[in-house]
């Protein structure tokens, strides 16, 4: 057996592929390793490309709403909200006060839902498997609330263009209040497990450092950008839904490493509970659906009396909603960053183009900046700290 001599290279070229326990979905990373040190790391995406933006163009606007739930499946109501805000901006339609405050409440509850999965999986990736079970215990309570409200645990589609799908029941509000009262104690539990755990700190502090300039130039947003010391939170810088009237502070940490990102997200969990409680307290009465008949169908009882309502009802349910021609992009602050739907409409029932500005698409693109030079085990911590959701990266 002739031992064929081949080029002597001292770097090992391996593939941390789509099916990997700690790539948070189907992210593939091609690694060039010199021993344990990552020499070059090239993220490859597309393994969950679902052609959602093409499917939008074959559906009406209201049907497209169900697609938004499945893009960032950890933040379904946030996606619905961004989609609806862009459509309502095209319509210039007025949303009743109760729907606005209700949307803030639901968006913040979804933020808790998403950050709980982050804390759970960040611990799980670094070997702390009990935190995962604690976090998902609270998340189950939250999902029961969502299911009670909208009938679906995850894909709620509860925020519709023009308001909400249905009103809040008083008992639901009290149950939600009880859940929010209990959350701060739970967050202390998670913090007691992870935050000052020497192993956790050893694995996270000083790992995967990202400078503020790189983050801004690469379009990184959300907790990753705030962890680099940049106070960029759309709820504060470009408030929507009346966020300027709520008293909370945007968490900014410096250091730009994995631990700073973890701290920003956990502190944000506490702020989110505060906002949700304020939203619950100030939830006004009144309808949750807009009176603009081009967007929302008239209530059932009105159909019996006014012919005009029947015409609106008929047009809405045959051609769907038809926003005036134009383009709109109204971003929100999703748990991962700036999330917005760029919708181009030509006045017909089907959109010309719906493009989702996914925050983690830019965040994952910055992975090589953080991972190169570190060890392989640090790459796992960096991917966990990015908290990517491949559903919205690959769309």
């Amino acid at each position: 057996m002739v031992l064929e001599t081949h080029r002597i290279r001292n770097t090992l070229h391996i593939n941390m592929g789509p099916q990997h326990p700690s790539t948070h979905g189907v992210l593939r990373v091609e690694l060039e390793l010199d021993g344990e040190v990552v020499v070059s790391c090239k993220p490859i995406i597309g393994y969950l490309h679902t052609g959602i933006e093409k499917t939008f163009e074959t559906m009406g606007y209201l049907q497209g709403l169900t697609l938004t739930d499945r893009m960032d499946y950890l933040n379904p109501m946030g996606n619905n909200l961004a989609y609806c805000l862009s459509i309502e901006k095209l319509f210039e339609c007025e949303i009743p006060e109760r729907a606005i405050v209700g949307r803030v409440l639901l968006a913040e509850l979804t933020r808790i839902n998403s950050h709980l999965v982050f804390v759970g999986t960040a611990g799980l990736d670094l070997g702390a498997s009990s935190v995962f079970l604690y976090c998902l215990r609270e998340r189950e309570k939250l999902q029961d609330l969502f299911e009670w409200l909208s009938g679906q645990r995850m894909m709620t589609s509860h925020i519709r263009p023009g308001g909400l799908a249905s009103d809040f029941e008083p008992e639901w509000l009290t149950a939600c209040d009880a859940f929010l009262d209990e959350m701060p104690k739970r967050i202390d539990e998670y913090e007691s497990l992870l935050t000052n755990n020497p192993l956790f700190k050893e694995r996270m502090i000083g790992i995967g450092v990202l400078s503020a300039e790189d983050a801004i130039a690469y379009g990184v947003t959300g907790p990753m950008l705030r962890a680099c010391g940049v106070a960029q939170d759309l709820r504060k810088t470009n408030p929507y839904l009346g966020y300027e009237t709520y008293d909370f502070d945007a968490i900014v940490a410096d250091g730009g490493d994995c631990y700073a990102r973890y701290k920003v997200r956990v502190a944000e969990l506490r702020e989110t509970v505060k906002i949700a409680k304020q939203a619950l307290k100030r939830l006004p009465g009144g309808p949750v659906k807009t009176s603009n008949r081009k967007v929302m169908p008239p209530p059932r009882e009105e159909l019996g009396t006014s012919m005009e309502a029947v015409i609106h009802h008929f047009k809405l349910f045959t051609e769907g909603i038809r926003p005036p021609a134009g383009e709109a992009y109204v971003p929100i602050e999703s748990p991962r960053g700036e999330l917005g739907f760029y919708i181009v409409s030509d006045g017909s029932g089907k959109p010309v183009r719906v493009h989702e500005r996914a925050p983690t698409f830019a965040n994952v693109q910055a992975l090589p900046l953080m991972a190169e030079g570190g060890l392989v085990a640090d790459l796992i911590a960096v991917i966990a700290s990015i908290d990517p959701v491949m559903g919205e990266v690959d769309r």
Partner: protein
Amino acid sequence: MADYSGLFIYICLAAAIVAVIVAISGSLSPSRPSEAKSRPYECGVSEMESTQHRWPVRFALVAMLFLIFDVETLFFYPWAVLVRELRWTGILGIASFFAVLGVGYMYARARGALKWR
């Protein structure tokens, strides 16, 4: 000849159990070698390149250090079982054993053998 029959039975029993387990699993599990199964598992993507090439010596160093200190803990077991009977002489003996290896550990740590970079 001191009574070694106990040890002899123990060894036969161990060998018998192993033989039974191997026999049952060998006969029951269907073995269907296929071309895909022989390929190395690399997270689902077919193998990038051959893996026969040089890898850094640090891996060997870490393996040796592990071997030494793992075997060291092995020697604690017999002492731990008889800790009461051995009393002070036992503790003295194991302390000296531990001290010698402790010095070795300190030296390795001071030389930075444990740090990867």
